[in-house]
């Protein structure tokens, strides 16, 4: 394949992902507004586009399938086929199928596909035999979530047969026409084999979507059709950020020498320069920001599929989808969000019967609200379900030995135990959520992004999960500290408080060393100079500054010479030759143009903490 052809194909793939996303939204909208002619026109346009371009760039398999899909849509559009939930499901399934094809093509431009099963389904729908489609659909739905459920109704033998059939279809180098494939399929399955099996094949392929790498999918942000945007590589944006950072530093240096300038024109230009460079910095930083829209819209689908499988009626409300966040944060945000939203539908909302019994509306309501709060992005996922009962959590926690039977926890603390590893409250493990690796994974993932997640719940009224994330990972708020002759940067997120360790606070504990006694709590105290193996200024402990670090295991104090100031720093990655150094998050360039290391105090002292822990519990706890 020559370069040009490859480029054209890659362009198509990027465009197709956009089209598919749009289509999915349209299908979902269609479900709630079945008579909307505009929507139908839009869908038809998208399908037609996809068919045309895929054929033009030479993806025959995609074109062939989209042709069938277009046929179906045309029939629906012209009113020959009634729009029912079954039809919408089928359309979504078609959409997923195309997505899978596009993803596979993204990885290997020569991939080939079999669409025979799903085309068969479309044909069924076209001939009006929708009943059987819907029937299979309901089985297939569950399959999406958990294959084992199906294996109850279908023997293991059949599954094996199905797998070998799939393998056969996927066999490289073999290209069949549709008829041939159908024939093969027939020869593979004995006549008495459940017809549902045949329908399962595409669903299994759908299940693979989540296993595929997410690249490209998030790359396209907004419809190229609706706004003029260009795609720029993140590396280039980072380069620009670097250079702009330098510009701002030079500008600061100039500003520091203002007093030496007496020429009024120069002074005026200098302040203009300051204003401009600040603006340039803001713009260059905003280039990394993308709206949450795409990620939040995916939740529509999650809620739809989850609620269908659980037979609950759920309305999803999304507020603030235009809120922007750093692209790197966004990429890691999708998974935790999916988890929380699924949980809200599965665990949060009661069954329809229960809702009616407690006098609530039949439809459950899940809302996702995103907004900026200071330098943070807040996403609130709330449901109007039954809330989390601290009593049940307590029982579960004791049963699972997460807490001891006599431990005294407040309701709030109990509720937050759901983030504890290996804690799942739902009595029976369902396919949707609750495999025991639930909320703790969400919590760890969000904490990896330097964010936090909290839950507020009201029994009978519902729960709110609040996810707070920094707007960008490229800039952090930090303290610049003096250690000996050098300066080190400590992220503000790690600092709980700082104080001067006066003699009445410092106590010596045998086997542990100096400790701080603070509000009745005893906190081990470490000197940063031994951890870094760098000298500190020669002065007594009491003249130093103690930084209290909030660590998961136990708070500890770190002694530094001085805290110089607080500022925002741009994080720069460390080079390969030193990136393995423990305790360093990166580096940054300070106001005078000199680089300084950003410390990760928790990592830096994790070894010391472990060493001291044994001594500590021995000596202090009693």
């Amino acid at each position, binding site marked *: 394949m020559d370069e040009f052809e490859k480029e054209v194909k890659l362009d198509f793939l990027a465009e197709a992902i956009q089209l598919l996303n749009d289509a999915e939204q349209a299908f979902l909208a269609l479900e709630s507004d079945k008579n909307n002619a505009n929507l139908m026109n839009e869908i038809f346009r998208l399908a037609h586009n996809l068919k045309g371009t895929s054929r033009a760039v030479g993806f025959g398999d995609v074109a062939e399938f989209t042709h069938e899909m277009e046929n179906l849509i045309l029939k629906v559009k012209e009113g020959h086929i009634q729009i029912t939930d079954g039809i919408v499901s089928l359309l979504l399934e078609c959409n997923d199928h195309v997505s899978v094809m596009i993803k596979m093509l993204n990885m290997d431009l020569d991939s080939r596909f079999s669409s025979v099963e799903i085309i068969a389904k479309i044909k069924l729908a076209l001939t009006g035999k929708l009943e059987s489609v819907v029937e299979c659909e309901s089985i297939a739905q569950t399959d999406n979530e958990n294959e084992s459920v199906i294996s109850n109704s279908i023997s293991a033998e059949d599954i094996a047969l199905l797998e070998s059939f799939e393998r056969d279809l996927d066999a490289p180098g073999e290209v069949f026409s549709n008829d041939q494939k159908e024939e093969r399929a027939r020869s593979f399955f004995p006549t008495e084999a459940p017809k549902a099996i045949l329908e399962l094949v595409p669903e299994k392929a759908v299940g693979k979507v989540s296993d595929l790498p997410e690249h490209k999918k998030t790359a396209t942000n907004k419809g190229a059709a609706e706004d003029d945007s260009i795609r720029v590589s993140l590396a280039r944006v980072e380069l620009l950020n*670097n250079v702009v950072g*330098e510009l701002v530093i030079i500008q600061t240096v100039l500003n520091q020498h203002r007093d030496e300038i007496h020429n009024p024109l120069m002074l005026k230009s200098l302040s203009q320069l300051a204003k401009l460079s600040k603006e340039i910095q803001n713009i260059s930083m905003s280039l990394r920001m993308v709206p949450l829209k795409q990620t939040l819209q995916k939740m529509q689908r999650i809620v739809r599929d989850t609620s269908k499988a659980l037979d609950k009626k759920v309305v999803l409300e999304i507020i603030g989808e235009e809120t922007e966040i750093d692209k790197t944060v966004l990429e890691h945000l999708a998974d935790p969000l999916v988890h929380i939203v699924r949980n809200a539908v599965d665990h949060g909302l009661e069954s329809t019967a229960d809702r009616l019994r407690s006098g609530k509306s039949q439809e459950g309501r899940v809302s996702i609200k995103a907004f900026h709060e200071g330098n943070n992005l807040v996403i609130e996922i709330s449901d109007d379900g039954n809330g989390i009962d601290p009593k049940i959590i307590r029982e579960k926690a004791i049963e699972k030995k997460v807490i001891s039977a006599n431990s005294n926890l407040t309701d709030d603390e109990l509720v937050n135990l759901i983030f504890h590893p290996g804690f799942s409250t739902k009595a029976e493990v369902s396919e949707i959520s609750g495999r025991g690796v639930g909320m703790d994974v969400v919590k760890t993932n969000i904490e990896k992004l330097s964010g936090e997640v909290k839950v507020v719940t009201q029994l009978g009224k519902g729960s709110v999960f609040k996810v707070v994330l920094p707007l960008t990972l490229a800039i952090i708020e930090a303290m610049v500290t003096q250690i000996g002759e050098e300066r080190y940067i400590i992220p503000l997120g790690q600092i709980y408080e700082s104080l001067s360790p006066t003699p009445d606070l410092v106590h010596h504990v045998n086997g542990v060393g100096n400790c701080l006694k603070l509000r009745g709590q005893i906190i081990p105290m470490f000197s940063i100079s031994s951890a870094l193996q760098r000298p500190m200024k020669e002065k007594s402990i009491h003249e130093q500054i103690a930084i209290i670090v909030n660590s998961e295991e136990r708070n500890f104090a770190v002694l530094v010479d001085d805290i110089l100031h607080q500022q925002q720093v741009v994080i720069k990655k460390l*080079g390969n030759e030193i990136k*393995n150094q423990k305790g360093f998050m990166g580096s940054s360039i300070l106001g005078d143009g000199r*680089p300084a290391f950003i410390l990760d105090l928790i990592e830096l002292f994790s070894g010391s903490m472990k060493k001291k822990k044994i001594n500590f519990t021995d000596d202090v706890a009693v």
Partner: protein
Amino acid sequence: MEKDNVTKMKRTNAELSRFIEFSLGKEDYAIPLLMVREVISVPDTTPIPKSPNHFLGIMNLRGQVISVVDLRKKLKIEARQDKEEAVIIVDIGGMNIGVVVDSINKVLAFSSDEVSEMPEVENQINTHFIFGIYKKENSLTILLDIAKVLDLKDMEAISGFKKAA
């Protein structure tokens, strides 16, 4: 990898290989010119805690933070102390590192047959980072494989350090 580059250079351009020659103490050394990004005067550096002795620190190269290594300390050569010091920014497979040398001499251009192998000496300490010697009229220039001098071994040393700490 860099050695491959040099052999390739020898093959494709048998006429001339270009090297930048610099001094460490009283001796002359050279590295391939193609690996040199730029040459600057010794910048302000920030020391790297817990790093081997020859790591001078990190510096700010127009917004990029890179490590600076003192090649004299690394090769255990006594510095000349005549304030002529310079830093060569080398590009080793996309990774930029500053290398402090006593002085930059000139750019050498020679054909590959003027390069001789490192002589076999008994009790030879490690010479794997030298890939040849260029003979001039009355002196020698040692051709260094800078990646081998600095790169992998140091990175291992640091992760070793990490484990020890």
